[in-house]
């Protein structure tokens, strides 16, 4: 039996799960910008963090199946003999590091602020919370993610080198 279609199937399913899980976080990132109630923001952030579990399962599947598919012998040898797959993998890994670096401290800070406000802290005013929420970070994250995923998709579809 030819395994290749099944590997690609798992790879695409991984992409779907990845998008489902991470889509939740993307939605929350922009939704909280308009929120001012710390309890609602706290609940949204919890939902976003919960979605990360699904997101990591998706990443595992798409990377695992993608790497496996790369070893499948084709007419001219395996995909690993072509440069586009290396560039795609490198772009994906770099993007993960960039997103992690840009998102972790931002969300940790936001969670600390919101948790403190829910606990009755007087150290943060509503104006300061609004300032943090309306910052450009979600756009930066969405920008990095979208551009790199579109680039990886281009490499996979058109295999330019």
């Amino acid at each position, binding site marked *: 039996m030819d395994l290749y279609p099944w590997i690609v199937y798992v790879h695409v399913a991984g992409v779907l799960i990845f998008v489902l899980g991470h889509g939740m976080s993307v939605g929350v990132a922009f939704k909280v910008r308009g929120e001012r109630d710390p309890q609602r923001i706290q609940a949204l952030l*919890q939902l976003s*963090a919960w979605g990360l579990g699904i997101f990591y399962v998706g990443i595992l599947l798409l990377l695992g199946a993608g790497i496996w598919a790369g070893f499948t012998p084709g007419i001219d040898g395996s995909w690993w003999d072509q440069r586009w797959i290396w560039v795609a993998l490198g772009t994906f890994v770099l993007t993960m590091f960039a997103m992690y670096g840009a998102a972790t401290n931002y969300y940790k800070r936001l969670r600390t602020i919101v948790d403190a406000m829910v606990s009755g802290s007087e150290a943060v005013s509503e104006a300061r919370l609004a300032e943090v929420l309306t910052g450009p970070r979600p756009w930066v994250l969405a920008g990095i993610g979208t551009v790199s995923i579109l680039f990886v998709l281009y490499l996979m579809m058109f295999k330019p080198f």
Partner: protein
Amino acid sequence: MVGTDGSTTATRASAAATRLAKRLGAQLRIVTAFGGNLDQSAATAVLRDARTMVRAQDVETKTHLQEGKPDEVITALAEREGADLIVVGNVGMGKASRFRLGGIAEQVAHGAPCDVLIVHTREDRAEGGSYRNLLAGTDGSATATEAARKAFELAEMMDAAVTLIHVGDPLIGAIVLERTAKDRPGAASVRTEALEDGDPADRLLEVAGRGDVDLVVVGNRGMAGARRYLLGSIPSKVAHGSPVDVLIAKTVGRSIEDIEPGHGGLVDLRGKRLAVYKGEDGAVVALSPRCQHMGCTVDWNDAERTWDCPCHGSRYRAEGMVFQGPAKRDLDREELA
């Protein structure tokens, strides 16, 4: 516990330890090691003189004379006798030994089983050991909060005030300082200061050098292991550069006995890391510190008596029950036996 070899710095450290013991109503154990530069008969005379000086201040004392390297003798005795605090001078205790990596004071500070007070003995300061204004830094971590708690307790006992600083993000600093000050044990007067970005050790030393601080309290995180050499450590840097006395509070490498009732902390027991909470009645709850969401290590939040996950914000009650997601399950219980 204080070590002496009869040198000027050791005598000054002993004097400071005596004043501290008298103020706190504590017993003072004096240790003299022989075998190196000091032979047994000279060590006996040194110990006798030190005991006479301490007893003249009406402080209960016990003496220990033992052969070996001074730092090893002091730390081993402190462990065996269950000392709460070791007092050392900051210029080494022997004439040839200076306060540097490998010096007695630093070796004691790195290997001590309890808190270490490094007394500034370069000049004779009659007030050493009697403190009016303590300085502590916090970044909101469990270990920093524990050091701040010790500063508050000491301030309460000595009727002193505490200056609490945070270095870094001013907004997070305001939250951390508010929480740490609000939940302090006792009623010691506290002044908080959020400082902009900079090296925390440098900023602590900067505040300590202003003239109104007489004791800096830091946790011992980074005093052992590779981190000390690779990244430097705040307590080590502060101990080296402080213009005033430094208390290095034992906040990592603690045992279950080190955790006060009503508090929690991470404890390494037989090679396994545990999240341990000790109830007000002394009952111990041992938990796995692995967050049930994605496996990060939870940390103790002393202000709210909770276990918090630093990765995605899951929170658990002191006994391990989850009350804030994304985690869905309670922390796993661990057996202590």
